[in-house]
């Protein structure tokens, strides 16, 4: 047996949506993190919970990139593909690197499944897989055999086969099994029979790798080097929930969170519902509008009020968000973006709700918008959203996306003592109080809450007098108030940190991005820089107001490329704001950017230099 050292591996598990691929991937990611690798994950699953077995549209995948050096993405293409059935092979094989490793559950390659996947002939027999390293293993049968003598039904036994696959890859990559065995028992603590069975099958998979002579090599990916400190593995939705709890604490207030079930935002509600001992109240509302309404009511009462949804739900919340703009109440609205329009691609990622966030309300209705760049970053963005909302008395939209929400990475745990507090002080002094009297620096009105004697007042959605808050239809007053509401948002720029820029402040190409594309864009820019190319990458956290740092550098580049997973929504803003002929690098496939797509697009732009670019066409991504 040979041991081979690798710097990094991209592995993808693919199978039926009922095959437990998400669990397998998550567990293997934990093992990689436990072994000290840097990791990045990309779960990619259909909207159907249990799509018909063996169907192409029911294939669920989980990609894991683990490495002995720092990584930013789940990897462009898998080196190893684990396929639990023909449909998984059919839909995923095109992504596997040439001469990549294929682990195939031959037990599922029966006539009926092959037909469902659209195979005329069995690919295991027709030579079509010759260019790959194929490991054909009858996982179905071996799983059954491992469970011989247990009182599980055939169906129940079948459910364990993902643990065979997990055991097998544990062996392939020389992972310690004790931790995993412990986790399986914990996970199935309420159904010890299943826990026992899954451990049996997991061990069977591991031992199969050891004893069967199909695998000649064990691969080792040595630990990566990290900055010293405590770490945990975290997904975007877990981190955003923690950020909200911490944000409320830093504000010295209680958290109220209202939501309506929607993919991919729901798990934030699930997390926060468990944090009741922090005084956190969660409210599953009857619909999206009510969730927004309840948040406004809680904000009116003095809570740190948060609601979350995805694009379709945000559309429903629009009117109530406008009420928040008008009454100047602090609410945080999370949009965990997915593919659109309408129901769109519920479980896939996209950045196509930027325009909706900036403009998707009636009237002149500006509000601050920021976007998280990675799973761990959502924690800090959530805190920042709470801070800005309460400091400026304004609803804040925080954008995340399906890729960040479900993806995970090792996360250096913050030192709470170093996070600055921003305690909220409610006005209680009735002397000289006017409802729309404003703070000089922030233009915020005082947050006076019911229960305060002598400060009884009325607010509402009708235009208000700029001082007293009484109903006013006066023409000049409306224009004044409209401008104040905009200026309030603009002034947030004074509290925004440095622009996240990698590369020089001038050069040939500036890549501008925002949100979850950060990892791929940053990695592409670094690769291009290493080749001596004058390419920089500015990643925007604040989209409204636009990062002030961008204005200082955007004119210093021959070409500006705005890379987004949409048709060019930020590009439109940038062209409007800076009058630069920004080019769009756009992908609308429900999938994140691959690094090579970005480097290719930038190289193409570099080739066309120094001839000034005149077209405003999009650069097409063909994945």
């Amino acid at each position: 047996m040979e041991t081979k050292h690798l710097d990094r591996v991209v592995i993808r598990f693919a199978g039926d949506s009922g095959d437990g691929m998400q669990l397998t991937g998550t567990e293997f990611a934990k093992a990689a993190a436990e072994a000290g690798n840097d990791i990045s994950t990309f779960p990619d699953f259909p909207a159907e919970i249990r799509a018909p077995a063996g169907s192409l549209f029911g294939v669920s995948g989980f990609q894991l990139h683990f490495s002995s050096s720092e990584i930013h993405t789940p990897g462009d293409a898998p080196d190893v593909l684990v396929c639990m059935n023909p449909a998984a092979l059919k839909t995923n094989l095109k992504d596997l690197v040439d001469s990549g490793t294929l682990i195939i559950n031959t037990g599922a390659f029966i006539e009926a499944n092959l037909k469902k996947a659209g195979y005329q002939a069995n690919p295991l027999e027709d030579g079509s897989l010759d260019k790959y390293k194929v490991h054909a293993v009858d996982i179905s049968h071996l799983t059954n055999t491992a469970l011989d003598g247990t009182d599980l039904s055939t169906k129940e036994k079948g459910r364990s086969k993902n643990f065979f696959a997990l055991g097998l890859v544990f062996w392939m990559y020389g992972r310690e099994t004790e931790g995993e065995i412990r986790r399986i028992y914990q996970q199935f603590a309420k159904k010890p029979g299943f826990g026992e069975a899954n451990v049996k099958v997991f061990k069977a998979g591991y031992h199969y790798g050891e004893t069967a002579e199909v695998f000649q090599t064990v691969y080792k990916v040595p630990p990566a080097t990290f900055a010293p400190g405590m770490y945990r593995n975290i997904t975007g939705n877990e981190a955003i929930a923690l950020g909200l709890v911490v944000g409320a604490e830093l504000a010295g207030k209680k958290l109220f969170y209202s939501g309506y079930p929607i993919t991919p935002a729901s798990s934030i509600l699930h997390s926060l519902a468990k944090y009741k001992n922090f005084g956190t109240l969660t409210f599953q509302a009857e619909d999206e509008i009510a969730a927004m309404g309840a948040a406004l009511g809680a904000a009116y009462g003095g809570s740190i009020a948060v609601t979350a949804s995805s694009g379709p739900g945000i559309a429903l919340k629009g009117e109530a968000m406008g009420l928040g703009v008008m009454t100047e109440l602090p609410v945080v609205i999370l949009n965990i973006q997915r593919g659109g329009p309408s129901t769109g691609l519920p479980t896939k990622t996209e950045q196509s709700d930027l325009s909706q966030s900036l403009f998707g309300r009636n009237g002149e209705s500006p509000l601050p918008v920021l976007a998280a760049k990675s799973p761990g970053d959502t924690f800090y963005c959530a805190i920042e959203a709470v801070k800005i909302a309460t400091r400026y008395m304004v609803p804040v939209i925080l954008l995340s996306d399906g890729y960040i929400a479900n993806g995970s990475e090792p996360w250096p745990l913050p030192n709470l003592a170093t996070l600055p507090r921003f305690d909220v002080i409610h006005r209680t002094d009735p002397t000289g109080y006017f409802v729309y009297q404003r703070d000089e620096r922030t233009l915020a009105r005082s947050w006076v809450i019911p229960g305060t004697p002598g400060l009884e007042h009325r607010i509402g959605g009708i235009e208000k007098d700029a001082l007293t808050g009484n109903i006013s239809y006066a023409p000049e007053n409306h224009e004044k108030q409209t401008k104040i509401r905009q200026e309030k948002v603009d002034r947030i720029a004074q509290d925004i940190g440095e622009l996240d820029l990698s590369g020089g402040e001038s050069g040939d190409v500036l890549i501008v991005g925002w949100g979850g594309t950060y990892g791929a864009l940053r990695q592409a820019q670094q690769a291009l820089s290493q080749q001596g190319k004058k390419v920089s990458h500015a990643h925007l956290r604040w989209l409204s107001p636009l990062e002030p740092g961008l204005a200082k550098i955007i004119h210093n580049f021959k070409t500006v490329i705005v890379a987004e997973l949409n048709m060019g929504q930020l590009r439109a803003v940038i062209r409007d704001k800076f009058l630069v002929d920004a080019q769009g690098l756009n992908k609308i496939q429900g999938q994140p950017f691959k690094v090579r797509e970005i480097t290719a697009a930038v190289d193409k732009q570099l080739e066309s230099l120094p001839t000034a670019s005149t077209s405003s066409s999009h650069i097409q991504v063909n994945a």
Partner: protein
Amino acid sequence: MSEAVKIKLSKKDLESDQDVRWCPGCGDYAILATVQRTLATLGVKRETTVFISGIGCSSRFPYYMNTYGFHTIHGRAPAIASGLKVTRPELDVWVITGDGDGLSIGGNHMIHALRRNMDLKILLFNNQIYGLTKGQYSPTSAMGTRAPSTPSGAIDYPLNPIQLALAAGATFVARAADTDAKLMGKILEEAYKHKGAVFIELLQNCPVFNDGVWEGVKDDPSNKQIALIDGKPLTFAGGTKGIKLGAGLMPEIVDVKDGNTSELLVHTERGSSLYANALAQLVQPNFPMPMGILYRQDKPTYDQLAQAQVTEAIEKQGAGDLTKLLYSGMTWEVGADGTRH
């Protein structure tokens, strides 16, 4: 010095400095005056009283109350009020809505606020018409109602607000006419004391777009109304007529002979929902309308249950420790050499 004397308010104390902008003769004036007078009598605190409304003529109400007030958006008042009540259970939260606001665009929020037994006092001003948008028919308009949007007459069957409230799970259901200050005051007083979802239908006149729509009930209280008294039989017309249930539980009007009410239904505020629903079916023009408290029930409110879960979580898990929370799950330490320990 007596605190009680200090906090005692007059009706005037509850009037805001804003000009009331309803049409002359609007039933809303009478309701506003009764609410102000009753709350003053009850000795509520202005600072802990909040009025939340949606959109429509009635929803301007909070501007005229010298309490905390929030004039929100169409139909959403129960949702916004729910968020406030859950987070600030010590506040008295009143919701002002109308038949269009509360039963049409906001029907869903109404159902769910009542279902949760949210401790809100919901006053629904029912004038069977959209006033602020100039007279379209509403979900409570009678069949055949001619309005700008239904020149040939409405072909929608109307909604019965009381039935809806009962079905949704309101724990205090009552009805009064806008001009019946005495009854409305009594109901408001009981509603104020009730812990839970209150639904009060106020029969309100719109003199501009639907004048006299309730006259069939209000012009002849003796014959067209049943004054509900807990424990007393359902009678009207000076005690000469009453209501009994016939075959198939069909309500029937019967004559009361020699004061014998033994076959009549006996009003029971805390009766079954079957009884309350029978009561809800007594509507004009076939029956006199029951006025007063139709139904009440005591059960834990949403805010009580929500707070209890927080208390229980703290008792069981201890007060939240953020560091512990962040460091939960699988954590590991990276040492000075940059590798995992």
